[in-house]
């Protein structure tokens, strides 16, 4: 074998390329919110069962990421941000990504069923199907509301965590779902305002390009307003309490103020300070989700000493 022939084969994938197919950065949000759903649920799984449940949810999310990369390989090659992904870069064959995605999906769902219950496994299967088929294959390239639609898949993890622990879907898990769902559009559209994307080259209809930046700013404010009652309502359920409510009110006001500032500006003002307000709204949106779910976990921890929830402070029940 000559050096020349070796050089034609260096496109062979390493282990890291397969890991990259699973979108590990997206997994961190999935793991955190699913863990919150598991921890705040009024049931105690064995720590090992919790660990396996989180692993299954993370692997399920990764599998849907691999399926997403398999389907989107044709547009990934057109965009700078995604051009170096394993498939467009030629390190992994599309068929391999499809096989990995399907295999890991089956593995994650069956293992979660064995580890916890059928409802949690079913919700995980639904999430993977939704992200891979409904969002990626069907709607992503059809409607500028793709961010809103895709957000559904990202909202499931705490509901799956809750179902894994309790075997049920309840108002608490529905509201945790709703908090992430309402948060997603403002978060991504704030990012879309200050990142020069080339979605247009790939013919993916992003709101900033189909309806313009003014309309995107309006949408950001609308979702920032609509998510306030959802986040506050969660505070009145069995997993909320004074601490969560204080955090929710403060963080929602903080984020709302940032979004109002984004809404009041036009492009000339934004370009003058290099999108400082848009970047600030995006950063606050990162804190938004982290602080809400951290506060829920804190309520649960305080409950160990009888200080959790409203009853721990002498309110009601």
């Amino acid at each position, binding site marked *: 074998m000559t050096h020349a022939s070796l050089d034609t084969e260096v496109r062979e*994938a390493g*282990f890291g390329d397969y890991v990259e197919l699973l979108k590990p950065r997206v997994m961190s949000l999935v793991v955190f919110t699913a863990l919150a759903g598991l921890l705040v649920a009024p049931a105690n799984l064995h720590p090992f069962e919790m660990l396996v449940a989180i*692993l299954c949810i993370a692997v399920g999310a990764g599998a849907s990421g691999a399926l997403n990369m398999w389907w989107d390989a044709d547009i990934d090659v057109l965009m700078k941000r995604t051009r170096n992904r394993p498939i467009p870069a030629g390190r992994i064959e599309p068929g391999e990504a499809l096989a990995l995605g399907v295999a890991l999906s089956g593995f994650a769902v069956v293992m979660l069923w064995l580890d916890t219950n059928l409802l949690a496994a079913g919700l995980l299967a639904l999430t993977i199907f939704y992200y891979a088929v409904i969002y990626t294959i069907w709607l992503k390239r059809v409607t500028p509301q793709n961010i809103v639609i895709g957000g559904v898949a990202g909202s499931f993890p705490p509901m799956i965590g809750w179902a894994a622990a309790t075997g049920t879907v309840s108002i608490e898990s529905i509201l945790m779902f709703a908090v992430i769902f309402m948060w997603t559009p403002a978060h991504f559209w704030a990012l879309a305002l200050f990142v020069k994307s080339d979605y247009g080259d790939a013919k993916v209809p992003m709101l900033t390009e189909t309806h313009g930046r003014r309309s995107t700013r309006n949408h950001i404010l609308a979702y920032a307003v609509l998510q306030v009652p959802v986040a506050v309502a969660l505070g009145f359920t069995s997993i909320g309490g004074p601490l969560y409510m204080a955090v929710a009110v403060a963080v929602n006001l903080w984020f709302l103020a940032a979004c109002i500032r984004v809404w009041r500006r036009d492009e000339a003002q934004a370009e003058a300070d290099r999108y400082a307000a848009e970047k600030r709204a995006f950063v606050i949106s990162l804190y938004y989700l982290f602080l809400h779910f951290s506060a829920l976990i804190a309520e649960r921890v305080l409950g160990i000493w009888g200080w959790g929830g409203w009853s721990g402070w002498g309110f009601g029940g």
Partner: protein
Amino acid sequence: MAIYVEHELHARRRSRNLGMLAVLLAFVAIVFGMTIVKLARTGDPSAFEGFDHDIRYGLAAEAERAAGEDTP
């Protein structure tokens, strides 16, 4: 002189093989751990006696009772 060429391709294959080994070992550990956790929770060995090949004491007791009832 050793006849040995280390190409980047070999390093990638090694990383893939070691990664696969780690994944398979982790899978074995998960299945083993889940088995221990689930069985330990039952507390009562007779609760899972139907899943092994030992004598099923519950069924044996039932059989003895049935045999006693048949005896005139």
